[in-house]
């Protein structure tokens, strides 16, 4: 990535952080009353954003497994970058969902008084597991360069790298072999943990009774596939921006193209089966997605801009890395629309006839539009993630690491 583009992105991240801070302060001072949520739509933009970040982790998860477990050499150069991406996105994911809690400071209770039957409990367990695995994996992938930097007099803030090197001054061939074994073991562990991580997030929605769109066995599967599509697209984008390798981009884009088609088929099946049931509240929820006030979110943003246009670009220009990167940018950028059309409409149908006229209060309504505070806090979290990622690529050897890894892989 050239310096000018990097600085532009850095500027965007800092600006977003500053603007978002206004909303964050408003939220921290005045609390939950500043949100547009209610009791009939208790999960809104932040939960959708949570599932968005969840999806973004998946591509990197796939890359590290392909590289370090299945030893596919072609991806080895972007292994460290992918592992670092998982860490940043999981942190963003945890941050936004923690802010969404009524009592965020009580989060520790999940481990003190766990509700083993709750899917949220398992979701937190697997999210924490993934974070720990990928922090360790990133560390072992970067350790060689960190030790090198700690000994390089030309590197600024060498003390930080010395402390990260944990007192090591040299990196031997034996260390390298050992770190590769560790990374492989961690990647191996991450397969079941990761699948349960994505699956349990889907299950959080799928297990709920009387939820027309969520309550389906297709939901966890759709979560896994859609996560791989968006996450894979993010990796293509990052590879193009930070470590351009056209062969890797072509191969990844080819995979995403296939996964995108699978995702659209699954989505079609989801709608088709649900419509076939012909149950009033199920049809009402589906109609809200397709023909409701926000029909354009589904048809235009998700289906056309986020699926069909990228699909066309990936088929038509399958050997043009720049166009493929743009196609992936569209997928990533519009993925929040897909998540919003999954999270909101299901809640936007009254669960009992007459609820709408029984007690009048704005928080007892099924209309929900995220307000400025919600958007600003979302902007703050996204900007923080972007800033952490950009600084990470400068202050940590995530770009430098992975060179010449093919022989070890």
């Amino acid at each position, binding site marked *: 990535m050239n310096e000018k583009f990097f600085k532009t992105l850095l500027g965007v991240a800092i600006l977003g952080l500053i603007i978002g801070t206004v909303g964050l302060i408003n939220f921290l001072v005045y609390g939950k*009353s500043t949100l547009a949520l209610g009791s009939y739509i208790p999960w809104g933009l932040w939960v959708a954003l949570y599932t968005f970040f969840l999806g973004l982790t998946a591509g990197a998860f796939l890359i590290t497994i392909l590289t370090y477990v299945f030893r596919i050499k072609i991806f080895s150069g972007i292994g460290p970058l992918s592992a670092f991406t998982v860490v940043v996105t999981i942190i963003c994911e945890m941050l936004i969902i923690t802010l969404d809690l*009524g009592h965020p400071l009580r989060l520790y*209770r999940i481990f003190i008084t766990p*509700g083993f039957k709750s899917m949220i409990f398992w979701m937190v367990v697997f999210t924490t597991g993934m974070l720990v695995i990928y922090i360790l994996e990133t560390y072992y992938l970067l350790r060689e360069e960190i030790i090198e930097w700690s000994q390089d007099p030309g590197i600024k803030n060498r003390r930080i790298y010395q402390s990260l090197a944990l007192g090591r001054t040299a990196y031997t061939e034996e260390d390298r072999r050992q770190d590769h074994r560790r990374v492989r073991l961690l990647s191996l562990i991450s397969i079941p943990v990761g699948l349960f991580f994505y699956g349990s997030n889907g299950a959080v929605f799928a297990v709920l*009774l*009387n939820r027309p769109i969520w309550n389906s066995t297709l939901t966890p599967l759709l979560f896994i596939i859609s996560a791989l599509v968006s996450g894979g697209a993010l990796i293509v984008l990052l590879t193009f921006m930070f470590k351009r390798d056209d062969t890797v981009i072509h191969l990844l884009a080819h995979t995403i193209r296939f996964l995108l088609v699978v995702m659209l088929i699954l989505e079609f099946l989801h709608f088709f089966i649900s419509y076939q049931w012909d149950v009033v509240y199920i049809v009402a929820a589906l109609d809200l997605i397709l023909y409701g006030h926000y029909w354009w979110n589904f048809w235009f943003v998700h289906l056309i801009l986020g699926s069909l246009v990228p699909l066309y670009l990936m088929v038509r220009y399958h050997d043009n890395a720049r166009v493929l990167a743009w196609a992936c940018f569209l997928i990533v950028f519009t993925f929040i629309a897909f998540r919003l059309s999954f999270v909101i409409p299901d809640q936007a149908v009254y669960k009992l006839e007459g609820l709408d006229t029984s*007690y009048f209060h704005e928080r007892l309504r099924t209309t929900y539009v995220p307000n400025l505070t919600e958007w600003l806090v979302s902007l703050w979290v996204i900007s923080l993630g972007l800033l952490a990622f950009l600084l990470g690529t400068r202050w940590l050897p995530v770009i430098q690491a992975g060179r010449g890894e093919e022989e070890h892989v």
Partner: protein
Amino acid sequence: MARDLPQEDPLIRMQRDLKRALKKNPRDIKWGMVIDIAKCIGCHACTVGCVAENKLPPGVVYRVVLEEETGRYPFVGRRFIPRPCLHCQNPPCTKACPVTATWKTEQGAVIVDYNKCIGCRYCLVACPYAARTSDFGEWYTAETAELPGKLYGQKAAANGYEAHPAAEYGQKWPGRNGGSPVGNARKCHFCLHRLKVGMLPACATSCIGRATIFGDRTDSHSLVYEMIGSPRVYVLKEELGTRPAVYYLK
């Protein structure tokens, strides 16, 4: 004829049933409610009684009265269905809680520990009856004018009602400035704090049509037991298998 006319006010009988139940071993009590929709006139007194009893803030409500319209013009009808928490015997909400802050007591009431609840609102999403609401920390008097020394305004208005501590679960809940129950999931708890001192739930006592019957559903002499045995009895969304402890009479 004599059998059809009530011999005494159902409230008196329910009060007597309650006294008898409270003398039992608490483990043997199973609270239950029967709502006779043929008697409900849709006055919403139960909703107001519940809100006042539990000092519920704006947007928080435990018991609403649903209004259903039936038939086609000109042959139309209207019926009212009060909906408290149904205190399901197989509650989907308690399973959803990641911190076990909500559970079913031995007496069959589904309750929330305000000091444990993290406010994830998963139980709200999980309840198929929309019987839980979240406390977003709002005040009825938030927009009331205040001019210290000149105007008897916001503070006085708040002190008149909503700054009073709620007595839910037998505790005083004074904090409406961020502490629990603000940020928590809240729901009907069968007025356990009233039951403890021998009083019926606020909704039962405020029902002017005596449509709400409350008591120990395992006591064969109680009115609630008698009503549950009626051929008119049904429960909401029976197909979900939640087995509510709140029954309705057609």
